[in-house]
């Protein structure tokens, strides 16, 4: 299967892969344990990644991007996985594929210049604010209120589980600008997080993904310039559903990056360490099956990326990718940890860490159950 997977990547892609691999080995892996301990990475890393173009790989040069294609993004995710932790790459994925694409897609030239370009150049960090303490899966019912007053939006409400929340410079906030219920009154507003009235109410202590910081944010009479409305007033629900497709696709690619990395580590340990070797020999069939599943899933993802590059969004297929890859990544991590037995108990060994980290894929960006709802609905059997 290696040959067909490699066939998606040109020499330029491979050069980029090598460059990112070296960067990860030199500038991320040696520090990742420290960042896991501290709960976040220093902003200089973001700036450095921005300078090298890694944050804007698939975006056009005119807006400050690298001018590459989506496969470069896949490379970034697959290579970041080699740092052996999911947290830091999650923060990066929020920057490259969640908070900022809606700004490029729906934003004004000024918003693109002030937020998007600065984000992909590593000068500003973004966050995406959908989830609220009482509204997670049910996005259409969010309550955070934005009211127009004297040429400003006045915002009140709270958002939780926000990745990059404690350290981000701005957030793309899903806001209710029309008091009526349901998705019609929802709009996106970009909020600078140093605005008066914004509070990091709680930094959240998580089960995994520890090198990314997560927060509960509160907005109390926060005044935002009217021009920070992103896209069309009242169309925020559609816009955020558009965003979620990209979030889910990159989530699927990231998940397979980790599964592939773990299987590679497994083989390395089996070569280097007699204790692992004997386990690996007994489990050879199981490992072979996991590899086949991961490679098949990668091929499936690459197929979707090809469609995505041609502007084809298939909500059902993206949901399948997110659901399938999230579960598979977790299955790989769990099965390898179980095989490792007492060799896997040490905190922060890659198997246990990614077992904890990968658990979130089945929750964030739409839970397994919500993905199944979408997939089933699109079967259109009624």
């Amino acid at each position: 299967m290696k040959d067909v997977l490699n066939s998606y990547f040109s020499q330029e892609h491979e050069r980029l892969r090598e460059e990112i691999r070296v960067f990860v080995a030199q500038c991320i892996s040696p520090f990742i344990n420290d960042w896991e301990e501290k709960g976040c990475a220093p902003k200089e890393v973001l700036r450095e990644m921005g300078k090298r173009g890694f944050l804007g790989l698939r975006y056009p040069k005119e807006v400050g991007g690298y001018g590459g294609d989506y496969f470069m993004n896949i490379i970034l995710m697959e290579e970041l996985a080699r740092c052996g932790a999911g947290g830091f790459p999650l923060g990066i994925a929020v920057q490259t594929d969640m908070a900022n694409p809606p700004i490029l897609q729906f934003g004004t030239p000024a918003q693109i210049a002030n937020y998007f370009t600065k984000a992909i150049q590593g000068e500003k960090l973004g966050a995406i604010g959908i989830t609220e303490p009482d509204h997670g899966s049910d996005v259409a019912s969010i309550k955070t209120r934005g009211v127009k007053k004297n040429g400003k939006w006045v915002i009140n409400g709270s958002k939780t589980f926000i990745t990059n929340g404690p350290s981000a410079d701005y957030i793309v906030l899903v806001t209710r600008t029309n008091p009526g219920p349901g998705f019609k009154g929802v709009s996106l507003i970009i909020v600078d997080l140093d605005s008066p009235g914004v509070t990091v109410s709680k930094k959240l202590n998580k089960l995994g993904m520890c090198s990314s910081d997560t927060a509960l944010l509160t907005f109390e009479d926060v005044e935002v310039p009217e021009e920070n409305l992103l896209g069309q007033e009242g169309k925020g629900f559609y816009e955020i559903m558009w965003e979620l497709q990209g979030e889910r696709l990159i989530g699927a690619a990231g998940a397979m990056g980790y599964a592939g990395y773990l299987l590679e580590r497994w083989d390395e340990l089996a070569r280097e360490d007699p204790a692992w070797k004997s386990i690996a020999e007994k489990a050879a069939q199981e490992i072979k099956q996991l590899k086949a599943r991961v490679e098949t899933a990668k091929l499936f993802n690459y197929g979707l990326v090809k469609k995505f590059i041609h502007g084809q969004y298939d909500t059902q297929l993206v949901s399948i990718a997110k659901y399938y890859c999230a579960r598979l990544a977790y299955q790989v991590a769990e099965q390898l940890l179980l095989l490792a037995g007492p060799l896997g108990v040490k905190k922060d060994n890659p198997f246990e860490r990614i077992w904890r980290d990968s658990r979130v894929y089945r929750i964030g960006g739409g839970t397994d159950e919500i993905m199944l709802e979408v997939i089933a609905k699109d079967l259109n059997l009624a």
Partner: protein
Amino acid sequence: MSEASIYQETLERFVKSEMQLTEQTEISWDYFQSAYKKLAELGFTEVIRLEEVDKPLLLKNMAQIFTKSSHLSLALAILWQLAVNLTVLDELEGFSEAKDRLAASIVKGETYVNWPWHNLSSGDRIYPLSFCSPDEKYFILDRDEDKGFRVFLQSTLPEGSQSVERFGWSGLKEIRWAREGEQLQGSIYLGKLSKQGFQTVQDLERFLTIACALGLMDMTLKAGYKFVKERTQFGQKIWDFQVIKHYLADAYSKYQAVSIAFAELTEYFSRGNKITGEGKAIQQVGFDYLQQVTDITLQVHGGSGYMREYPVQRFWRDGMLLILYGK
């Protein structure tokens, strides 16, 4: 009311009043010692040695009460002192004053001895239930498993020993050192543990891990029920989504199947039978279900399940460690 149920009720009351821990409670050596000593003062640790007591039933109940009411680490530390260590000493052949003194001091909570859990055939000695206190002691088994073991008590850690931080079992660490070239000074010989005696200890350990797995399943299911009854999405309690109902019904069925099978096993064990094969089988199923049940209860919590302030993530981590060591 039978003696066993009076005992169980009193123990339950004790655990409820003295050992109710929050997510933030740090299990420490001092905490363990004070809990254990209180148990000893109230006579709970003594009962285990009485001839007439139904030991498997008592241990099953104790394991489940401790696991259900507190952190797994505390339950494991108490059970391995009380049940495993005393059984090891009972199984040692011949009379030895050192052995009797040690048993008395374990009952009183004056000595904490680490029992090696795993990998007797590997190059390392592995002690998973250590608080890393300098007052702890270690059972050392020499290597001849076929002929039985000679058992020693070691009071200090040999050079080169490491303490391993893990992803669960808060407050406890693993102590390990390589057997190759180890220099054990000042160890006291306690007696010989026959191959059969060793198997008795292993059967008991397996028995206790099943009881703890059930305790964890019960705890995590209760946390799941509480959450799904309170949490609302799309204008309805999430309990009202069919998938959530089915998940929890499936998890509950698995819990019940193992729970009742284990109660039967306990009765069989109480009648003086060996449970090696049966214990292995039920443990395998129990661990499998423990994983599934802790996973599903975490899932029904959505993002909250991933946050440290909710206990389901702890049951999920602690359960996995139990499986990794216990298998």
